[in-house]
């Protein structure tokens, strides 16, 4: 190994105190500086942090943003979300391939550029988008993209190519991004005007149990998808005897079509950290972690700075607000893995490991981060906390419905004129949201992203809340000219790519689902394929180990249930003794090639001299 490279690796490890638990930080630094983490690098890292090579390799190969092969000094990752596909992803790929003379997934010979795609980067309201060395570029067109590429031949700092900053804090000197918040509708809980630190002051004047009681009375439920009562979660963590407890904020926001946490991180960072601090007081934690997805790395410096300011102001660190209460937060950067949004995988990832879910029980509130009771909450959930502590649980219950109190942030995108972030009261009918977003012609709406449901017009009257139409945020609208099966296939690809591979049904079953779906898309499906998909989906849901597998058949099952005609139009019934989807000539092709001759029995065209 070159001495310069060795120095870089040693420095990266030292900066992380040669601590194995901080493997992701080390790998990020090495990847950034050396453009790859090769076998020698893995060996050295393992030696320095007291690990072994294959363990480091296991981590490197788990995360999409680490690579054993050298990437370009300029690493381009085009966002390959379904919305980006509809907005010109393919044109951008072609533009880049032509300009750089390489294919998607390759690196130029001079090592200058590499071109990759990546699932949803949380910019669906400004698609098509790309990450260039972690700088976000939005609303790209082939000509804009070509200009960027030309400049990047000599300019290595992608930040300098951002010419116009987005709205709100996106123009802050520590962000300087062209990303827009597109806040289209505000309400009183999160995106309206809010007082500073009032929640924290009130919370610290109360005993932890009293804070938990207020949370419980407010009926706050998790905004990350599952809707678990937050007060109850905190109660469990507080009741588990332990010497340490942890508060983790889940800012992995990997669900395709969801970007509301990005807006909160940009505009409500203080509120978020205030919420984490209240949570720490309520459960007796001294350590917090913000798990930030790597796609939002452009917000990293800004968030670190806010933490620093809070420490300076006595809002974090020792003796917070002069009380006998100590709490601090570190930021853990993810590295490109949707599964790390699942709370136990997220904990594995924070521990510097492969982001695989853990067995439950024990639940994270009993034994989470390094075995200590750990509360994992979504960004939006934690942002609601200071508001409840400031205004009271009764005020909070004044918003929403019986079982879904408060407001909900929605990420609206797709075929609409006003994509962006909407704060609505729980209980708002979907039609109202669609109307405000300018999506009159929507014929299908995805609620909740890849793991959610695809619903048809008849269900647009339903209300957004846990008891009717739950969503972690995604509202993706599709006009009638969109191909439902293509969309479904995209989501299945997403799950295949993002499955951690730990358990059989999710690792293998989703691939089978995709193959059967493809058969139908290609017009080769038969009615029995529909039953096959249903059965297979049922097995995957019932036997998978975590939430990813429990939801991965949803794209297929929900479109089959809500758009049966789309499927009916694509499958052909069998004739007597005839399988409609079976093409004897195709089936024989492989054998023909091997035998170097055509079959006389099954090939009438051969005799007539055709083909």
């Amino acid at each position, binding site marked *: 190994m070159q001495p310069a490279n060795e120095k870089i690796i040693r420095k990266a490890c030292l900066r992380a105190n040669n601590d194995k638990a901080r493997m992701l930080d080390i790998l990020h630094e090495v990847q950034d500086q050396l453009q790859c983490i090769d076998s020698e690098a893995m060996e050295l890292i393992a030696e320095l942090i007291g690990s*072994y*090579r294959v363990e480091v*390799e296991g981590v490197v190969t788990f995360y999409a943003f680490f690579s054993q092969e050298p990437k370009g000094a300029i690493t381009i990752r085009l966002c390959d979300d379904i919305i980006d596909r509809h907005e010109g992803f393919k044109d951008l790929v072609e533009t880049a391939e032509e300009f750089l003379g390489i294919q998607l997934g390759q690196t130029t010979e001079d090592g200058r550029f590499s071109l990759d795609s990546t699932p949803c980067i949380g910019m669906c309201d400004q698609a098509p988008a790309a990450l260039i060395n972690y700088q976000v570029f939005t609303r790209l067109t082939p000509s804009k993209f070509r200009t960027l590429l030309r400049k990047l031949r000599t300019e290595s700092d992608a930040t300098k190519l951002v010419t116009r900053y987005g709205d709100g804090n996106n123009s802050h000197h520590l962000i300087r991004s062209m990303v827009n918040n597109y806040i289209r509708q505000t309400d009183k809980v999160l995106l309206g005007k809010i007082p500073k630190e009032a929640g924290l002051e009130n919370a610290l004047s109360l005993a932890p149990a009293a804070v938990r009681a207020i949370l419980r009375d407010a009926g706050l439920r998790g905004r990350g998808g599952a809707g678990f009562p937050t007060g109850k979660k905190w109660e469990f963590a507080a009741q588990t005897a332990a010497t340490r407890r942890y508060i983790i904020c889940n800012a992995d926001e990997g669900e395709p079509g969801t970007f509301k946490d990005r807006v909160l991180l940009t505009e409500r960072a203080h509120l978020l950290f205030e919420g984490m601090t209240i949570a720490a007081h309520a459960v007796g934690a001294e350590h917090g972690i913000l798990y930030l997805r790597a796609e939002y790395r452009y917000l990293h410096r800004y968030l670190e700075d806010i933490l620093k300011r809070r420490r300076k102001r006595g809002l974090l660190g020792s003796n917070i607000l002069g009380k006998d209460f100590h709490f601090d937060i570190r930021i853990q950067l993810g590295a490109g893995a949707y599964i790390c949004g699942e709370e136990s995988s997220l904990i594995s990832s924070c521990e510097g490991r492969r982001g695989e879910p853990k067995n439950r*029980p024990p639940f994270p509130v009993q034994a989470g981060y390094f075995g200590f009771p750990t509360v994992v909450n979504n960004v939006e959930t934690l942002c609601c906390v200071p508001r409840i502590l400031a205004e009271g649980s009764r005020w909070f219950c004044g918003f929403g419905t019986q079982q879904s109190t408060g407001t909900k942030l929605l990420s609206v995108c797709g075929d609409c004129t006003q994509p962006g972030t909407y704060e609505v009261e729980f209980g708002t009918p979907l039609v109202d949201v669609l109307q405000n977003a300018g999506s009159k012609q929507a014929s299908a709406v995805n609620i909740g992203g890849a793991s959610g449901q695809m619903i048809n017009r008849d269900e647009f009257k339903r209300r957004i809340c846990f008891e009717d139409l739950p969503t972690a945020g995604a509202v993706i609208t599709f006009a009638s000219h969109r191909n439902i099966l293509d969309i479904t296939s995209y989501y299945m690809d997403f799950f295949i790519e993002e499955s*951690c591979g*730990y358990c059989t049904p999710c*690792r*293998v079953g989703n691939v089978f689902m995709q193959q059967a779906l493809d058969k139908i898309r290609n017009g080769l499906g038969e009615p029995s394929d529909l039953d*096959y998909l249903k059965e297979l989906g049922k097995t995957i849901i019932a036997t998978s*180990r975590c939430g990813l597998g429990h939801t991965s058949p949803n794209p297929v099952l929900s479109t089959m249930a809500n758009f049966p005609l789309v499927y009916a139009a694509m499958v052909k019934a069998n004739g007597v003794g005839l399988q409609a989807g079976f093409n004897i000539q195709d089936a024989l092709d492989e054998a023909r090639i091997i035998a170097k001759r055509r079959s006389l029995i099954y090939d009438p065209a051969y005799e007539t001299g055709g083909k």
Partner: protein
Amino acid sequence: MTTKAKTFTIYVDGEAVQAVPGQTIMDACDEAGGYIPRLCDVEGLVPQGSCRICTVKVNGRTVAACTQPAEPDLQVEHETREIHSYRKDLVRMLFHEGNHLCPICEASGRCELQAMAYRLGISQATKYPYLQPVRPVDASHPDIALDNNRCILCGRCIRASRDVDGKNVFEYIGRGIDKHIGVNGANLAATDADIDDYAMSLDVCPVGCIIRKKEGFFNPVGDRQFDRHPIGWEIESKRIPTTDISGPAGSDQEVKP
């Protein structure tokens, strides 16, 4: 159990089974001579719940019996038609994921995947496609070969090497359908793997992936481990002392609904 902990009862398909705190559903059933099919779990290693073949239903929820703690009065559904069909699906998935040609495989007859297929009554081709992956064979080591074509990712070798041998020869690499077993070096010969490691013993790899060289096909057909008894027999024989192969787990039997 060294101290005599308070026992309690769980009900498996309505039948009372005694359990002690700290036991999983599978532990309790094993002890009582009730076999729950499994591939990634084996006695002596920490259960990891990845193959999912031990899926059972508890209070209407499907869970893995190998990791789910037994609790007083649990109602466990085990040999129902629904659970049986899940298990068959999972075993088929494993067959179709890798490249399995039993007639030429060294492990045939003592292979747990093959034996499980027989036990569950899988004897016909299924609708699942064959993925036919291209996977490497590592024959670098003088005494051991790895034929990844047959690996079912059970992780038994990883745990055996790490927890019993204290060596870390194996680890999972990659994710999703590309996940595979990696070794701690350029190839197996470059690791500290030894033929006498527990990880390389016949007890660990359930299939014909970890192969001990120079001792292939050591048992003649008819004399192989599962020629005489179906898989799970050792556990079941605690309850039903029998040498009869057509016992409760003969192949292709219909399960009770």
